[in-house]
């Protein structure tokens, strides 16, 4: 379970709050979609949850563990797919996976089994001995996703995970998300692809200009907006409304 209470974050070189008093709870067994226009604060929020950025105030709890008080314990419960797969071009794919598995303390048998499974699923098992620098954007993304699952985390956070994935891999990713949620684990991901969010998410939140403008199920969103439209239309209306309100 991931709990965010009144998180606020302002970057050092900016006067504007990137995230403003944001509170969310993502329950176990839930696929939670995090939507918002560019620059709304999605990545900042995910970075705060994963400990990459320090919030100015507020608290993050992962499975009840306070991230500020016990950061290493909290981080061990997270698997994170960042929005930028450009990592360690000089390492070989296997070296990168081994490094991540070592950091999370995964045993030899478990890591071999999980890496074989996920890399096969994403079609990169045959390039494990190759240098990451020779990979395409999509292959790097698949490697990052495989690495984020090597320790079988209870909380899986993905920032724009569909970018660069081919249709088969995108399908596999969605299947893994469903499988993990069914196993009682948490899946929290940001996306711009409304169709994916519409079909996949149990609940979703829409963020704009650092503040949550909606948090609930798709049905609740339709009820609150009073129309039975697609998520795409509802999203655009909601974001436009919040833009007008702040103008």
């Amino acid at each position, binding site marked *: 379970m991931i709990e965010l209470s009144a998180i606020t974050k302002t*970057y*050092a070189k900016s006067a504007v709050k990137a995230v403003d008093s944001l509170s969310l709870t993502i329950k176990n067994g839930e696929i939670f979609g995090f939507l918002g226009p560019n620059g709304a604060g999605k990545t900042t929020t995910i*970075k705060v949850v*994963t*400990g*990459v*950025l*320090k919030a100015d105030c507020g608290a993050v709890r992962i499975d009840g563990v306070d991230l500020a008080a016990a*950061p*290493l*314990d909290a*981080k*061990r419960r*997270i698997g*994170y797919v*960042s929005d*930028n797969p*450009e*990592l*360690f071009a*000089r*390492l070989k794919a*296997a*070296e990168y*996976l*081994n*490094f*991540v*598995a*070592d*950091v*999370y*303390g*995964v*045993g*030899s048998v478990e*890591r*071999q089994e999980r*890496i*074989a499974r996920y890399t096969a699923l994403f079609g990169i*098992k*045959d*390039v*494990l*001995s*190759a240098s990451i*620098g*020779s*990979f*395409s954007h999509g292959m790097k993304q698949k490697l990052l996703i495989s690495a984020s699952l090597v320790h079988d985390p209870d909380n899986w956070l993905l920032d724009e995970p569909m970018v660069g994935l081919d249709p088969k891999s995108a399908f596999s990713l969605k299947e893994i998300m469903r499988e993990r949620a069914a196993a009682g684990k948490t899946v929290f991901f940001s996306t711009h692809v409304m169709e994916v969010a519409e079909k996949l998410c149990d609940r979703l939140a829409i963020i704009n200009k650092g503040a949550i403008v909606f948090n609930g199920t798709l049905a609740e969103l339709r009820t609150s907006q009073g129309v039975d439209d697609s998520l795409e239309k509802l999203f655009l209306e909601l974001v436009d409304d919040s833009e007008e309100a702040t103008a």
Partner: protein
Amino acid sequence: MRVFLSLTALYLKSFYNLPGKRAPGAKTTPKDVFKALGIGLLALFVVGQMGALFIATNMAMYEALAPAGLQGLVLLNMAVLATVLTLAVGFLTALSTYFLNDMELQFLSMPIKPKALLGAKFAAVYVAEAVVSIFFIASAVIIFGIKEAPHPLMYLWGILAGMLLPMPALALSYLIQIPLMGIARFLKNKQTILFIGGILGLAMALGFNLYFQSTLSRLGDPAWLARHVAGPDSLLAKLGSAYPPALFTWRALSDPASPQALTSMALMALMCMAGPALVVFFLSDAYAKSLVGFNESQIKKLGAAGANAFIQAKLRRGPVFLSLVKREINLMNREPVYLLNGPFLIVLGPIIIGILMIAQKDAFLSDPDLAGVLALLRNGGGAILAGLAGAFLGSGTSISCTALSRDAKALPFLKSLPLSAGRFMLAKLAHGLVFALFGSIMGAGLSGYALRLSASDMAAALIVAIGLSFLLNLGGLWLDTANPRIKWDNPMAALKQNPNSVIAILGAMGIAGASGYAAFALGLSTWVFAFWFGILPLLAFALLLFPYPRYAAKRIAALEA
């Protein structure tokens, strides 16, 4: 023409990392002033070093040739060397900038004529060539001018020659490289090029070093002078007559006010400008074609059984700290820019000193000014020299002082891992210390062997080398933790253009020099020196190491990469 000029400006900014226009109303901060001052001092240092070498060579040559009335040969030597020097520098610059990045592929999709593409790149590379050439020619012309008081036109011809001589050299570089890139597929990879360029650059730098050192030491030998410089069958005369631009430059500068000087300069200008014109005219299409498919990745794939066997064999649990150190070593040693400008110094340093020793050995041994130093070295001073040489090699690798900057792109990912920042940074220090130890052993060991040190003196030298290099590595890591270079587009910027590496290298030089001076001035015995400059630095290292992880954790938490 506008496209050509825009492209040239863009290449110039990219090649030489020139700053863009300041935003209106932007204020100059103390950091900007400090940075500008630092860069200015560094430029002065580099230019001063090169200038001193060029001036010393030309001066020595003038003084050796003047008694026989052959001082004019200094100008021929200048023209030949300016050509060779610019050919070497030009070849390497043209190679390293042949394919800048994927922006080049973007250009291919734009309505840009291949002639503008190659012409702009030629022009941008040429700027650096011209600066090197003018600088070198100025060092000879000014000496000649002071000694001979020639007609002022010589200075004008000198500047013109400096601007013109690099043109055919650079044209020749492209004449070799363009067809080569067209046929050799393995070369069409930026990393391969950087590696080959780095090795070639080192070889050329060592070659020039050997040339200047051996020329300087042998100019007093008339037989050598006749064979290599002054005689009609000398190497210099043959090179000069085989290469007309050098010969015309020599003629024009030897008698600058004569009508023949004007004719020589005109012919030389014509010949020099023909090079780039012909290359751009005939090779532009081939150049544009050779850019297609650059940096295409070829991935080695495993079969199904091979992949399973690979996973079983390679993916095994290991200690986290060792995994972190291995990652550091792999990331540094597999990046050509990092390897050649970092750990490779441990190999390169002894080679340079070895060349200097071989080329100048006789001069050192016979120089009366160095007699006192030699006596000091024979009476215990050898251990001091060996210790300081080891300390410099162990601390000059730029590993620790750029450790955080090099990892800037991965910081968000690393911060998301269940790893304490202190532990992660200590792995970086361990990486630096492994090479510090290796450098110390190489530097102190080789110097000790050359100086025939006793076992006791060798031990003292090693203690000094390890003590100082460990302390300097930790100092470098503190520096980079306090002020890392977080934003960069090219790995080169994290190391070569990182002020921390400059401060660390100059600091190591300064500390080694000051320690040596103090040891000789105070007449310290070997083991007293080992105590003050080996044991005490090790204690300081231990003291500074204690608070470092906490500081690193605090500092990294505050970084918003």
